[in-house]
């Protein structure tokens, strides 16, 4: 896939500036949605007592994930280097199958469409989709 153009990066940065105030809500909804719509993802959270949408661990983890996305926006000029330690975490400790990165990305986009219907134009959508794909690639860097 192609790398991020300067226009993509500008689009992501300015869109993120608009939505980052709601990052926690976005994260919580995206994660909750993922567990409902793609039940196979629950296999990574067998250690949680409660996997329902409003539960404490789901909320907390949604925030953690979305903070990671915000962190990646800051590192957008060199995602591979910027996300090195996160990649090591996912590769050696969490061992999340990278196929799931696409799944959480899709759900983030769905939540963005719901929460920001006017701002999430097709142009913003394509840049965000590319960014999340590049993020996923950087996250998978250390897997093998």
């Amino acid at each position, binding site marked *: 896939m192609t790398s991020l153009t300067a226009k993509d990066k500008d689009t992501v940065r300015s869109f993120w500036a608009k939505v980052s105030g709601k990052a926690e809500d976005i994260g919580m909804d995206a994660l909750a949605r993922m*567990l*409902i719509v793609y039940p196979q993802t629950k296999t990574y959270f067998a250690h949680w007592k409660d996997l329902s949408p409003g539960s404490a661990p789901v909320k907390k983890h949604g925030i953690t994930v979305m903070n990671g996305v915000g962190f990646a926006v800051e590192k957008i000029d060199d995602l591979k280097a910027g996300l090195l330690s996160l990649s090591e975490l996912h590769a050696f400790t969490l061992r999340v199958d990278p196929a799931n990165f696409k799944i959480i990305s899709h759900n983030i986009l*769905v939540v963005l469409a*719901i929460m920001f*219907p006017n701002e999430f*134009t*097709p*142009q913003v959508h394509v840049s965000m989709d590319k960014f999340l794909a590049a993020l996923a690639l950087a996250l998978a860097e250390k897997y093998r």
Partner: protein
Amino acid sequence: MVEWTDFERATIQDIFSKIDYDIVGPATLARCLVVYPWCQRYFGNFGNLYNAAAISSNPMVAKHGTIILHGLDRAVKNMDDIKNTYAELSVLHSEKLHVDPDNFKLLTDCLTIVVAGQMGKAFTGEVQAAFQKFLAVVVTSLGRQYH
């Protein structure tokens, strides 16, 4: 045979009775051509597709988007036999239109996002699950006659 719960049936009927086909259809196809530009390969005679603004205001895209969305009506009305309902359309997409079946998923992902934007909070996780399940069955059925 696909098993549908009462909730899933009701959700699909509800969504398709509420959406404005003339808004959702065009918006979905336009979004697909912007977000996944390689899909433009099927629309060589549609004129100006050079940028997002051109795509979003292209009348041929709009017209075709509405046609595609109405194509889903058959599945909505025949949820218990989507496979056979789409046998003919599957042959058409394979033999005549030569559409890569992987592209069906790209279009339905865009449809999900457009409908989510329209429905807002009403597009809950459960509603999304039902909608995506329905679209997955449609996509599988449309790809079935390829060989």
